[in-house]
Structure formats: structure tokens, C-alpha cells
């Protein structure tokens, strides 16, 4: 898998080169090199930074020049990569953007808009018993059950009707590494997004119920998050955030109950006895960060830690646990009681194959080709099959399956979740 470090490095390198050869550049070109990558092509905001129009509209020239010189390190904005002599020309273009934005006031209001979080209604805590033996309608583990079989007992979609599978819903996701497998509980989908936020979505429509947006030191950290799965126990949702923090969110509201530092980002599993067990990738981390650890699910207290970076096991706290399914495969298969195997190939095709014969019964083409976790669940008696497709990030480039390279600036969404179901019966 491509390391996202390349991405950050390339951006840095290109902006350095940019600063050296800008004497002849117009204000628009200066803007494109120094601002557009984060704030979007027209300054109205991208995935990496908000709209700059409100600030430009609200500040005098001197204040803006000073701001461009120093940046806003606390919020991750570097000083503008523009030579001192070129700053007035850049400023002129910023003023032009404001003057030509026929909706500055609207942009101002959009700037203030935060996710409008609601509560998950009628939330039922997930107890150890339902974790051991999940409701067929739910998907509570990265591979549905603790034995990691990735088998769904749902059989509404089967070999006889899978050819009629239609798109129930889809939702664009922000740019970043898409390696997550959502959970579904009681008709609510919990998803770690490619930008390392966590969302609770209505699993029948993809409409958000709440979103937890964690403040990361910089956008690259968020985008390289590779939390493979979330875990649930009682009313908490466990998320291994890419800033090396284990976060326990209240599943009803998305608010943080507790958080605790860990090694590098990684995967989370849940133990029946109330422990959160966590493993992670330590490829670029100090050796000390290579460990598996268990935390008290309710308080976040460290119970034990198994150091995997040394020759001998090193325990602290309680005894070692066998951890079920610590390493979800990068590219999953899904088997269902409808005698179907769902899988995707490298060319964006997503297929349903008859388990007995291997015959392809249904096929569609998704927006991206990187294999991600898929799952099936049911809400109100309707069975859904969900798959996430994303595309790898490269500098200034987005590759969507077998489509050619197309420019990718800030604000691009290059992942989506697709959810399929059988047609609903005609209205009576």
C-alpha cells in the first residue's frame, strides 16, 4: 500500500519549487500555487481548509498581508508560499475572488455551519451476549462475528433474485485512505471516514445522524488514517484515531466519553469481558510502539500490553488474551446465507457470485477500485449490501479505476459508499 507520507512530501516540494519561480506569475497563478490546494479552486473551501472569503472580506489589506506572512500555525495553515514582493498581487486576486463570489454572505454562513448532530433514537446498548451472537440484521464486528467468518445469515437477497439488485443509496466521502469496514446496529451505520472522522448514518438512506470530527494537527494526519474498523460495547464506540489515540465515543451522540494515547494508528477489537483490544501498524514508529494492548472499555484504563516489537513477550497487568481477528484482510469477501459470495476485482467491478457454482449472477461498476470492507445487514426487514470504494491519493492526481488520470485539487471527494437492496414492493 502506498504510504501517504509521499503525498505530504510532494506537496511540500512543489510549493518550495513554486516559490522560487513566481516573479512573472499573475495573482491567479500565485493563488493557485499557494492557496488553492487547501482552500479550493475559488477560495470557497476545500477538504483541507475552510473558505477564505469571509476572512478576506472582513479584513483590511495590512492585516491580511500580515496574516499571509505568518499563517495560522495553530490551525495548520502555513505562511503563504509567496515572495514578499508578490503578496500585493496575491491580495489583489483574493479581493477579486470576494468581489466575484456572488454569495459571500452565504459563504459566511456556510463557514459557521457545523455538523448538525442529532441523537440516535431508541438506542439499545450492545451487551456481551449480542456481541457473541449478533442479531442477523446487525454487523457488529469487522467480519460480523467474533470468529471472523464474514458470513451473514441474511437470505432475502439470494441466487434467485440477486440480478435485480438496485442502488439503495450512495454517499460521497471525503478524501483520504478508505480502509474502514462500517458497523451496523439497529438500523444505524457507524463509519470511520477517509478523513478520519466518525459518522453515524441512517443505514437506509445514508443521511447523517451525527459526525465526530476530531481536531488533528494537520490534514495529512487525518487523510492517512487507516482505522480498519470500529468496535462497539454497551453504548460506546471505539475508534483508533490516526493521531495515535484510542477514542471512546458515545454511540448515541458521537461525543467523546474518554480517550487515551496509544502507539501508531491501528485496529480495534472488543473483548466480551469489557476490554478494548487494540493492535496497530508500527512500520514507521519507534519499536516501542509495536504492541497489542487491552483497555478497560468503560474507563480507558490500560489493563495489559503485549509488546510485539521484542523477541520475548512483555506483559503488564492482566494475562494475555487470544485476540480474535486482529488483522482484517485488505480486500474482503462476503458470504451470505443466500448462497452468495460478494467480491470485487481490481477494475471497479463489484459482483455477486453463486457460492455453489461460481457463476457471476450480478455485477455493477463502482467509482473506485481499491478493495474495501463490505458487509450486509437488514433494517425493517430489508436486506442491504454495502461496499466502500475509494481511490489512492497521488500528488495532484486522482485515479478512479480505469478512468485516466484527472487533476485532483482540494475539495475533491474520491471515495464513496454504495448500498444495494432489492426493489421495494410497489406501493399498494
Amino acid at each position: 500500500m502506498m504510504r501517504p507520507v509521499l503525498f505530504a512530501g510532494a506537496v511540500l516540494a512543489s510549493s518550495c519549487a513554486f516559490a522560487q519561480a513566481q516573479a512573472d506569475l499573475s495573482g491567479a497563478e500565485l493563488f493557485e500555487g499557494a492557496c488553492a490546494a487547501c482552500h479550493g479552486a475559488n477560495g470557497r473551501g476545500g477538504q483541507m481548509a475552510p473558505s477564505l472569503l469571509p476572512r478576506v472580506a472582513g479584513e483590511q489589506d495590512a492585516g491580511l498581508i500580515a496574516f499571509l506572512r505568518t499563517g495560522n500555525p495553530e490551525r495548520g495553515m502555513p505562511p503563504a508560499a509567496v515572495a514578499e514582493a508578490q503578496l500585493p498581487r496575491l491580495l489583489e486576486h483574493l479581493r477579486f475572488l470576494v468581489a466575484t463570489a456572488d454569495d459571500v454572505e452565504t459563504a459566511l454562513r456556510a463557514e459557521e455551519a457545523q455538523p448538525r448532530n442529532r441523537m440516535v433514537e431508541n438506542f439499545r446498548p450492545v451487551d456481551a451476549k449480542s456481541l457473541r451472537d449478533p442479531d442477523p440484521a446487525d454487523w457488529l464486528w469487522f467480519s460480523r462475528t467474533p470468529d471472523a467468518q464474514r458470513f451473514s445469515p441474511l437470505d432475502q437477497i439470494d441466487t434467485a433474485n440477486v440480478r435485480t439488485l438496485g442502488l439503495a443509496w450512495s454517499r460521497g466521502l471525503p478524501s483520504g485512505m478508505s480502509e474502514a469496514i462500517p458497523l451496523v446496529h439497529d438500523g444505524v451505520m457507524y463509519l470511520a471516514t477517509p478523513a478520519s472522522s466518525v459518522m453515524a448514518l441512517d443505514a437506509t438512506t445514508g443521511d447523517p445522524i451525527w459526525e465526530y470530527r476530531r481536531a488533528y494537527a494537520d490534514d495529512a494526519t487525518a487523510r492517512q488514517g487507516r482505522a480498519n474498523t470500529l468496535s462497539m460495547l454497551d453504548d460506546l464506540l471505539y475508534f483508533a484515531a490516526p493521531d495515535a489515540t484510542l477514542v471512546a465515543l458515545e454511540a448515541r451522540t458521537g461525543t467523546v466519553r474518554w480517550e487515551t494515547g496509544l502507539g501508531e494508528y491501528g485496529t480495534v477489537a472488543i473483548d466480551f469481558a469489557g476490554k478494548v483490544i487494540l493492535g496497530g501498524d508500527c512500520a514507521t514508529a519507534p519499536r516501542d510502539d509495536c504492541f497489542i494492548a487491552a483497555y478497560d472499555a468503560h474507563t480507558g484504563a490500560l489493563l495489559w500490553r503485549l509488546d510485539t516489537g521484542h523477541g520475548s513477550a512483555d506483559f503488564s497487568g492482566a494475562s494475555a488474551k487470544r485476540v480474535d481477528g486482529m488483522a482484517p484482510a485488505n480486500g474482503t469477501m462476503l458470504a451470505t446465507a443466500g448462497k452468495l459470495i460478494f467480491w470485487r476485482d481490481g477494475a471497479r467491478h463489484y459482483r455477486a457470485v453463486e457460492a455453489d457454482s461460481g457463476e457471476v449472477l450480478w455485477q455493477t461498476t463502482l467509482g473506485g477500485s481499491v478493495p474495501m470492507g463490505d458487509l450486509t445487514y437488514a433494517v425493517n426487514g430489508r436486506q442491504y449490501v454495502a461496499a466502500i470504494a475509494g481511490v489512492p491519493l497521488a500528488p495532484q492526481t486522482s485515479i478512479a479505476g480505469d478512468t485516466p488520470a484527472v487533476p485532483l485539487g482540494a475539495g475533491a471527494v474520491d471515495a464513496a459508499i454504495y448500498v444495494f437492496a432489492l426493489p421495494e414492493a410497489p406501493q399498494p
Partner: protein
Amino acid sequence: MMNIPYSKPEAKMTHATWLIRAAALALFSTAVCAQVPNYQSVTQRMLENPDPADWLMFSRTYDAQRYSPLDEINVDNVRGLTLAWTSLLGSGNTETIPLVHDGVMYVVMPGAIVQALNAATGEVFWQYTRPVAQALGASARTKNLAIFGDTIVYTAPDSYVVGLDARTGEMRWETQAGTRGHTSGPLIVDGLAITGGACSGNRDNCYIAAHDVATGKEAWRFYTTPAPGEPGDESWHGAPLNNRQASTWGLPGSYDAASGLLYWGVANAMPDHRAARHGGDPAGTGISTPADLYSNSTLALNPKTGRLNWYYQHLPGDDWDLDATHERVLLDTALTPDPRYVKWINPALQPGERRDVMVTVPEGGGIWALDRHSGEFLWATPFPYDAPEFWLDHIDPATGTVTLKWDLVLKEPGETKTICYWNTRSYWPTSYHPGTNSLYTSYSDVCRELTSANAEHPESWRVVPRPGSDPNALAGLAKIDMATGEIVRFDVGRVPGNGALLTTAGNLVFHGDMNRRFKAFDARNGELLWETVLGGNVSVSTISYAADGRQYIAVMTGENLKLTELLSLNPELSTPRGHNALYVFALPQ
């Protein structure tokens, strides 16, 4: 010009190989040739009477009806629609409408890119990338391409009209059209590509032009405002030439092969305010038509020469940036406008009289039906509703002369007025279904609250619901009976859309909104028959075509200029931004 032809990767290509190939393409523009197989040249006859499987221009046919004669997908089976393929696109605006010819889709992608795709699978045959600054490419708003012979005509965001080889995507010619903003698209008539554009700030760019599709040479040019001494000059009351601006930035025009006339809509007069154009005096031009010609007018032009045959002005001396550009729909109907639904009816009209009609719904609201041979006024009515804030005071039904509400013109510094309507149908294409003799349009019941500048603050504005309107009926779809003018509303709710209407012979109406919902309705009664939820905001686009005998519905989602503004009316929505994607649906095989 840079061109990146492309072949599809081998099906079994490994992930690593694929990444390497992708990187090579991105960095070195490796030429891997692929071309459209068995290309069939497009003739004028095909444009006038297209194969039902094709979608050869922005609204499918010259009459801009946006009606597909395909009926494999119909009211009885639309519930079974499945996703045939989908594709994630790059960043930028998505305000465009694909073309389809012989199973190949030609479409403007975000970032000033044109692609030819296999319309059945989404595989790319070729790609042309216009070499423009990334910011310019991402902000491009080209509405459509046009096709003739073996040439694709593209109005690129750097003000060039560009001819591409439809087989390979190689550039044949490029002709600069001043510094015009190429937010519109071409319509090709008899080998001439006719284009408009945005011209804000510079009257030199305010023109419609025709370019020879074979050579790119400009054949004629029609300035949308008269210079001193030219016909219509008196309507400007001596305003300086550069204060006489009116653009054609939106959806292109339509054409009637029988009458040999081209119909093109012109946008508001600029600078935006009457006082700004007329020496500081808001009364410096008329409040009845004609005033500040040919702003907010329908032009009937000879497509061979660009000569004006007739004009009709919908809004005299605009003060509020209400555009009456966008498509003119041509249809033939018996006319019995019913006074219960229609406010202004030409008294000379005999009940049941058949006319060749041109109908349009401007952004500022209202519906107009004109005789398309003469420009004679037939009927008009307020739309989406009659309201005290509707800018139109009255129309003389005998002459069609329009008078605006003087009260709504801004006259003093720092005063605030609410003017209806604001982008009620914006640049979302309308559709006409001959089976129901009805025009289908989306609408938003919203207005513009405008505050003039004073010593303390510059001019400001915001979009607001119409005063006294129902917040749960902020937007909807309307079926407008072209014989009687009766309006039936359906899909009424809180959420405006940015998508096109599409009607089909399957008696279906397709429309998508900015809450990701893409729906099919029964064209006869507006009943909701099918709905899915896409990844982002539905934007313009929606078409139907057939490839290898299978009917498809294609729709694009993504960013467009109006999205931020419209989302401000729906703070409860959480539409993902930037989800530029193409979704294609079909019945199971």
C-alpha cells in the same frame, strides 16, 4: 495542446502495476492510443431527426424538448432500475450535460477535461485535457458539447472554441472568442457551431458567434446590445457603450429547421443596476419594454448570417440580476389558455387555435408563450406564484409589452428590498413531454433581499424564502399544461434541486435534488415511482440513451455555483460537497 489518449487497463492487472501505470500517465502523459471504434459521422439530417438511442445535443433535439423516445424503462418497471456503472470524477464544477452517439458518451469532466466513454461500461476511449491553470479548469462551467461530422466542439474555459476529433480526442483547431466566459455551450446548425458566453465587465465580449465546425473560422457575430446608431440604440437612452452589457452565459439556444430560425435567450443588463448603467439615475431608462435591449430578451436569428429576425423582451431595464437566458422550448399545440391559470392572454387568440409556440421560464420567474415565427405574444403568467414581490407589474396582453414594478427598483442608499423570484429554475434544464403536452420545470419559491450601498457598507444581498411562503413548500416540480396553462405541482418540499428534468416515452419524469435523492415520477400525475440516494448533489446532466439496445439513465452529481447558496436555505442538510460522480442506471439484463 496536451492530449492524453488512454487505453483501459488489463482486467487482471495487479494493483502495483496499475499504480505504476497511473503514475506514469499522470507524470509523463504517456500516450496510449485508443480511439472510438467504428465511428459514424453525424449529419445535419441526424441532428434534425436523431436516432432514439442517441443524445446529440444539450436537450437532445433542436426544439430543446429534452424528451427521450425510449420506453424500455417505463412506469411499469422503473422500480427495478439497477446501477449499471458509476465513476468518481476529479475536482471542480459539474454543470454539464453529456452527449451520446452510437454507444459513446462525450462529456465535459471537472477540470476542463473532455472524455469519450463507452456508454455501456464507463471505459474511457480518449481524454482531452485543456491546458489551463488548475484553478481555471476547476471553476469551469461548460454546459455542454456539440457534435457534427466527426468533430466535437468544446467551449473551453480559456475563451477558446475548440474542435476535437471525435474518434481520437486530438485537437483539430482552436479559435479564441475574445475573453468571453465560456460557461455556456455550443449548438451546431448546418456546420456552424453557435455559441454564447459570459461578458461581465466588457461589452466587447457580449456576443453570440458562429464558427465553421470544419475550420474553426468565425462566420458571424451578433452583439447582444446595440452600439450607438444601431437598431435598438434608443432603448439605452445614450448610455456609454461599455455600460451596455448583456451576456448569454447559460444554456444555449434552440432551432426550428422548418422556419429556419435560431432562438437564443439573453441574460440581464450589466452593470446590474439601472442607476449604474444610466449615470446614477434609476429612472434613466424605461420601465416598460423595450428598455436596454437586448437584455432579458428572446432573439430569433438567422443561423446562417446571425441577422436578427425578431426579438421579444421579457424584462425591461433589469435592476436585480434576473436572467432570462437559458433554453427556449419549441412545441406545437392548440391554445386555450384558461384565465383561471393564466394572467395575461392575447385577446386576438382564438380558443383552440394551433400555433408553433416558443415557451420559456426565466430565472426571475414567470412563464411566456410566444409565436415562434413572429415573436407575437400569446400568453404569460406569474410563476411559481403571483406575489406582491414578483418584479412584473403588468403585461399589455394585446402587444406583450412588459412593465416592471417601479417600487421594487433600488433608489436610495442603504435601502432594502425583496424581489421575487431569484433563480427559481436557475440553469436547471426544463423538459417537455409531447404525450402530456406539458412542460416540466423545477422551481424554488425564493427571492432576493437586496440592500443598496451607503457610506457605511457596500451593497449586499441574500437569498430568502418568499415573504409569507410555506417553509415546507420551498421547492417543487411543476407540470405546466401548454394548452391551458394549468400548473400541477408535485414533489413539493423543503429541498431545491440543481438537476435537469428529463421526460421519456416510458411516461417518466426524472429529477434529482441537492439532498442526493434521484427520483422517477409518472409524467401524467406526478406520482413518485422510484427513488434512490446518490453520493452527492444532483447537478444538471440527466439524460437517457441506449447502447446495444439497452436503455440507460445517466446522471451526474457534484459541485455547482448555486449549491452553497441553496444549501443556506436548508441548514438541516448535510450533502457531501465535491462528490463529482457519474451514475448510470438500467434495468437488469
